[in-house]
């Protein structure tokens, strides 16, 4: 019974996602949390492509999230773009270009160097956004974002209500999951996992792993940029902290809590993190202390995360 269920979920991961998240806002305590889970889950999904599947630990994914948010936010607030798709596209372009440039530099070194270099570049962007207050709003954040209605052929939907926005995000995240599944099921996806397992052997098999890693980096940046753009729409403001190292840390924690290298891990982790943050912050200001301790315990004792451990238990 259990095994049959696991097999069904494994065979149709995107369908499972759709079924769960179609009713998700009505299951969680309040609807805003559901939208947050979707968006942060997408962020973690992008990070997971690089860390969980390619084996590259980035400590600077705030860069792509933040650039996605600023790209979308600037297009709406400063360029007064009236198109939702154009605004999200601007965020994607910014995140993608940064992914190519930063990826090029970071991938010159591997292992632990890579983690710290990615962090350094993200901090560089943070300082730039902080000081370019004329454009980005600096410390006050980017304000004045008007969310245009969603325009599809023959259909215009205003996104003011939180439920409408949830289902808009839901549709985009489902699309992103389909793309991710396509990437992972392709020969390219198999090479990514080969690089994670043993990059020397992947080289010996004749793969140009530098190019493949860079591609994986850029795909990852694009997913995170989309998530950042959606978050700019959700909040109607881009705080400068979206580029700060704490944001990079958050996505690392979410992914590891849920289970790196698993398809649903990022969403499980985003839910766990956001619910924990919400509950803990109601009774203590020092909630990061508890999140830090829980995270340390996971690294030491449950490195596969919640979903990864569950899968391993069910399969054995």
């Amino acid at each position, binding site marked *: 019974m259990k095994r049959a269920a696991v097999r069904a979920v494994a065979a149709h991961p995107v369908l499972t996602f759709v079924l769960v998240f179609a009713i998700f806002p009505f299951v969680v305590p309040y609807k805003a949390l559901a939208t947050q889970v979707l968006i942060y889950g997408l962020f973690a999904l992008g990070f997971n492509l690089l860390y969980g599947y390619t084996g590259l630990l980035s400590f600077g994914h705030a860069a792509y999230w933040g650039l996605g948010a600023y790209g979308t936010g600037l297009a709406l607030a400063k360029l007064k773009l009236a198109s939702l798709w154009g605004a999200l596209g601007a965020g994607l372009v910014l995140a993608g270009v940064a992914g190519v440039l930063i990826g090029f530099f970071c991938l010159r070194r591997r*292992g632990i160097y890579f983690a710290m270099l990615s962090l*350094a570049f993200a901090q560089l962007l943070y*300082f730039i956004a902080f000081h370019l207050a004329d454009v980005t709003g600096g410390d006050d954040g980017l304000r004045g974002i008007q969310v245009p209605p969603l325009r599809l052929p023959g259909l215009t939907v205003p996104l003011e209500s939180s439920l409408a926005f949830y289902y808009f995000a839901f549709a985009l995240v489902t699309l992103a999951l389909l793309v991710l599944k396509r990437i992972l099921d392709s020969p390219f996806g198999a090479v990514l996992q080969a690089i994670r397992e043993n990059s020397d052997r992947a080289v010996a098999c004749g793969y140009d792993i530098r190019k493949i890693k860079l591609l994986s980096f850029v795909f990852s940046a694009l997913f995170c940029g989309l998530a950042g753009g959606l978050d700019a729409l959700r909040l109607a403001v881009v705080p400068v902290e979206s580029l700060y190292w704490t944001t990079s*840390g958050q996505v690392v924690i979410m992914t*590891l809590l849920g289970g790196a290298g698993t398809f649903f891990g990022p969403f499980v982790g985003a839910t766990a993190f956001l619910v924990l943050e919400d509950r803990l912050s109601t009774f203590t200001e020092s909630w990061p202390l508890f999140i*830090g301790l829980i995270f340390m315990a996971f690294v030491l004792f449950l490195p596969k995360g919640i979903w990864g451990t569950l899968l391993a238990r069910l399969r054995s």
Partner: protein
Amino acid sequence: MGGHFGAPHLITALTAQLFTGLVLGMIFVLLAIGLSLIFGLMTVVNFSHGSFYMLGAYLGFALVGYTKSFWLALIVAPLLVGLLGLGVERFLIRPLYGRSIDDPLLLTFGLSAVIIEVVRLTWGKIGLSLDPPQALGGAVNLGFGMFPAYRLFVIVVTALVLVGLWLFLERTNVGLVIRGGSRDPLMVRALGVDLRRIWLIVFGIGSALAGLAGILAGPMRSVYAEMGVTTVIESFVVVVVGGMGSLPGAIVAGLLIGQVVSVTTFFAPKLAEINVFLVMALVLLLRPSGLFGEAGLME
């Protein structure tokens, strides 16, 4: 901008700025050497290094309060941070050997969040100020300008610590094993050396150096719970520029980055943090293994 200064004033102001850069560089050197030693020997990046630095400053503040003696605090605070480092290596990092090299980084990332929150709970959210000892409160005339005595003291202390560390690594048996262990751990183990004890010692020394950097920097910069985070990132840039695992590299790069920060602060304050990263990008482009690094040695 220095435009309204006359030429002699500009030179005086610039000399002062170069001097400030030297002091800042010394703090970077102390931090980078600890990071670099730990990485070179154990391939562990200690993200909580910045928290150890911050803890050095806070413990220094507390000890000055209890003992009324900056000198005692200057010795005891780094030792306490070193002890904490020993505990962290023994109980938190040791279980991770043999697993992915990312795991210690992840663990110490969590640890640094925990240390920051514990410090906030203990000393409050508002920053503190740590006063330099009275004997070092004044300024000294060096012939080409007046310089704060405390900053000169920081330069002297750091230089002495560096000489001591160099003698330890070059002239003692433990130092020999440390150098050997960072070059070829398998060979050193094959010779019957228990490297685990060496790792413990090196982690303790590196942490103590971070603590020392913290208490030394305390009277010059503001002391607050997050002070270590930006600093650890900058120190890591120093290690990348100098070459991972290279002590001369950490010293030269530390002094270089100190000057970069200080001189750009003088001419264009907004660019100070940004230029540090540009130097790093340049080095990565031209010499990916760092100024003193050997390609492929520690990847």
